[in-house]
């Protein structure tokens, strides 16, 4: 017991000095658990996030847009893999984290439980959803767990193309025909509030927030990041000539920030709990893809075993 207290003091001192925690370092069990939960959730979000955009690859309006969307969705898969890799350094296997996703024990970002109804949604997702994710991920580059931080640095380098290609789609639509502009406005209307929900519950109601800040897993709170996102994004919407669907949105000169309306928290919790429009189909697709890939995994493993055996015979 005394030993644990000493180790915890050393751990705290390390964080205090701004040092990173590495996989083999001693860490409190709760720190490990929190990180496994957060990193796996983050990885699942990247992977499940491939579905709403994958939905439009075959219907992209030009070859250029198709190539871009394909590259973006491939990146999301890659980001998922960086994060699974970081997560595994905490002593959990890939099998187990995938199992947790498929059984519903592990969550992923609720934003991906909304459907992508029109091409403009590809613009809104890149601009808003990736924009919000970047806000969070830029902060996480300085997270206290080394492998997570390093994965975030890689991800941030790649992510800014995602947001820019989305905004470009919005620009083209917003300056297009009245129908195209209406389509862009409709996408903004549907994605604005779910995007604000991506930052999570209010600080006062966020059970994990204080501890994550103390352990420097997070460097900024949900509300701080959300405010920053609104302040940066509203002028971008104005530039497009689109209207943010919030009647309470107004500039507050005193705070040097935008005031904005109340999020529908009932909707937020409802989607988190599995009742969003696409929760079911997202997991079904994941399970199906996993099962359909089973023979490939088995064949590759059998081939590897056969080759290893042949190599052994040759040596003997």
């Amino acid at each position: 017991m005394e030993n644990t207290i000493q180790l915890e003091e050393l751990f705290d001192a390390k964080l205090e000095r701004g040092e990173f925690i590495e996989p083999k370092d001693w860490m409190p069990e709760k720190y490990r658990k929190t990180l496994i939960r957060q990193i796996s959730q983050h990885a699942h979000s990247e992977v499940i996030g491939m579905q709403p955009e994958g939905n439009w690859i075959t219907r992209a309006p030009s070859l250029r847009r198709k190539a871009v969307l394909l590259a973006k969705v491939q990146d999301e898969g890659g980001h998922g893999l960086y994060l699974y890799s970081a997560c595994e350094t905490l002593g959990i296997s890939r099998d187990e984290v995938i199992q947790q996703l498929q059984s519903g024990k592990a969550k992923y970002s609720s934003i991906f439980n909304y459907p992508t109804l029109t091409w403009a949604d590809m613009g809104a997702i890149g601009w808003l959803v990736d924009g919000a994710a970047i806000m969070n991920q830029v902060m996480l580059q300085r997270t206290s767990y080394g492998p997570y931080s390093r994965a975030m640095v890689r991800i941030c380098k790649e992510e800014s193309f995602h947001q820019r290609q989305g905004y470009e789609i919005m620009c083209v639509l917003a300056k297009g025909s009245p129908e195209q502009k209406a389509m862009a406005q409709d996408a903004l209307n549907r994605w604005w509030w779910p995007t604000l929900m991506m930052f999570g519950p209010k600080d006062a109601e966020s059970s994990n927030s204080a501890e994550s800040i103390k352990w420097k897993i997070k460097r900024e709170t949900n509300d701080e990041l959300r405010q920053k996102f609104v302040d940066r994004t509203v002028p971008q919407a104005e530039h497009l000539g689109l209207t943010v669907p919030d009647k309470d949105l107004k500039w507050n000169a005193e705070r040097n920030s935008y005031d904005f309306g109340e999020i529908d928290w009932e909707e937020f919790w409802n989607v988190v709990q599995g009742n969003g429009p696409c929760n079911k189909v997202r997991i079904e697709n994941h399970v199906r893809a996993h099962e359909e890939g089973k023979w490939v995994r088995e064949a590759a493993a059998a081939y590897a075993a056969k080759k290893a055996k042949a190599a052994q015979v040759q040596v003997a």
Partner: protein
Amino acid sequence: MSSVTDSQWPVWEVFVQTKSGMPHKHCGSVHAPDKEIALQNARDVYTRRSEGTNIWVVPANAITASSPEDIGPFFDPSNDKPYRHPTFYEIPEGVKYM
């Protein structure tokens, strides 16, 4: 609901050399059944934007690492041997190129 009992293959650590002349740097891991597929997976996952000229993949269980607890005794010798550093030695003024 599926049960994920099938294998996800062994873990390989990935080291990428960004350009010739530079050291290989650890950048993460991949799962693969053998070394050829490990290399291909590493290329797909870690070098999508020409980040590399060369990749090493190493079975994760083949790596032996020092323990953080050893940090004191394991790395100590260098601190009490300042004569390993060039600044330990006095060179007369006016002597050049040394």
